[in-house]
């Protein structure tokens, strides 16, 4: 059993992916023994009408999950705190679509982590008992389309933000291992911030990162279908962690945060 906390559906604008459509993604996840996937639409990064994006996501997941014994898709709506009425977008995620969490793109949506609207959004997310995912990076700067000039999200303000909202639970997606200890350690020690390792690189790099943050703060996330899911799967083989840690990272911790039933 594996819960993949970082999966996308929909269309990626900059290249064709080898799998087309939700069913193909779901089948490919199943082949990798990924039983549950937390999914958002790529369109959430680029569109302005996020209510429509989230509605589409909910429908895609409902259709895919119906009568299907394959990977269960759990929808994570995309919210942009710079949208004029994000509170209504958030309300619909919870009340109409029963989503357990939301995914945020500070880089692509153009706000720093010390933006007061983000603090308000994360407070609302915590009040509604939702899980938040913050995407730190979308693509290697060196291969981005020339129209896209994004760098990794600056995390300096995050420890303070997490401290100010004591019920907030949050995951950094596409975490960069180069973030210094003075930012990473307070986040990890809060016990309310988790990390994926899709972009944690280097030989046995995940073993080293796990030593820094503790295996209790790691959640399996592949960034499929932009990255081959085999990458995150094999990174755990390369990390050579004890079986109990593996289970916690693969499944138990994620399931504790967002029950799959």
């Amino acid at each position, binding site marked *: 059993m594996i819960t993949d906390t970082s999966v996308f559906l929909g269309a990626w604008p900059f290249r064709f992916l080898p799998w087309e459509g939700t069913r193909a993604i779901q089948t490919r996840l199943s082949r990798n023994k990924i039983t549950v996937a937390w999914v958002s639409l790529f369109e959430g990064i680029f569109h302005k009408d996020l209510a429509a994006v989230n509605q589409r996501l909910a429908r895609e997941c409902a259709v895919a999950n119906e009568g299907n014994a394959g990977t269960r898709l759990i929808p994570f709506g995309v919210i942009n705190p710079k949208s004029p009425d994000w509170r209504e977008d958030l309300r619909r995620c919870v009340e109409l679509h029963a989503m357990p969490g939301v995914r945020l793109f500070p880089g692509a949506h153009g706000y720093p982590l010390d933006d007061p609207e983000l603090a308000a959004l994360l407070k609302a997310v915590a009040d509604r008992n939702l899980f938040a995912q913050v995407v730190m990076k979308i693509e290697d700067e060196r291969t981005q389309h020339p129209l896209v000039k994004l760098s990794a999200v600056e995390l300096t303000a995050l420890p303070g933000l997490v401290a100010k909202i004591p019920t907030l639970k949050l995951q950094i997606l596409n975490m960069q291992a180069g973030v210094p200890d003075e930012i990473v350690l307070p986040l990890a020690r809060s016990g309310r911030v988790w990390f994926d390792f899709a*972009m944690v690189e280097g030989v*046995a790099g995940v073993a080293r990162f796990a030593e820094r943050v503790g295996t209790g703060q790691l959640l399996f996330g592949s960034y499929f279908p932009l990255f081959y*899911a085999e*990458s995150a799967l094999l990174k755990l083989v390369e990390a050579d962690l004890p079986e109990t840690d593996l289970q916690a990272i693969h499944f138990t911790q994620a399931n504790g945060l967002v029950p799959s039933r």
Partner: protein
Amino acid sequence: MIGDIHGHLTGLPGSTATERMARLMAIAERMGIERQCVCMGLNFHYDPNPEDLRKQNDECLEALAHHHDQALGLVYLNPKHTEASLAELERCVAQGPMVGVKLWVAVRCSSRLLDPLVERAAELHAPIMQHTWYKTTGNLPGESTSADLAELAARHPKAQFVCGHSGGDWQLGLQTLRHSPNVVVETGGFDPTTGCVEMAVRELGVERVIFGSDVPGRSYASQLAKVRGAEIEEFERRMILRDNLRRLLRPILESKGMRP
């Protein structure tokens, strides 16, 4: 039973090449890598002088010493220093155990400065691995693109080239090599972005794609995933992970009396 054409000694624990190589080979074994090629020394320089070339190649030779034919070396050269580079080629490949050439970012590889080195490497049946990237953010002054390599390869049809990183931005890089039959692409050193191996196989043919990881800056995991996760046939996976490297190195290994 996997061969990896692209590995280094930087960024590993251990103060000597021997210690670092032992560490790398232990993890390689866990990940199913049977043969590891390495190149360059304990510290990298963009534009190494003759003395530094010798030092880095000495460190690489030291790394190879304890691993028999499971570890193979590529000699690091700088085309700006012709005499010193030719001497290193003689010392490390013709007279020594190394089986190929590594060129990094000292000079763009379309330069005529490469010609004498390429000619001698071809005589020795030593493939030449050239680092290439297409960076949206801008290349280093001496950093080649795969189009530079295509130009070099067309000038030297008898030499065999390996395009490091498949051009980095592989959607661009792979297009530049469609008409370069003496260039194979190496799959390492960029994120495990889906479709990379599929496109390489589609555009170049599976026999022109070989596995490389660029460890230890990269994990074996993320780089193996490109081949393991690609939507290709099982026999194609075997060719990329093992057979193509074996075929590439067969002439030089046989000339040295080594196991191909």
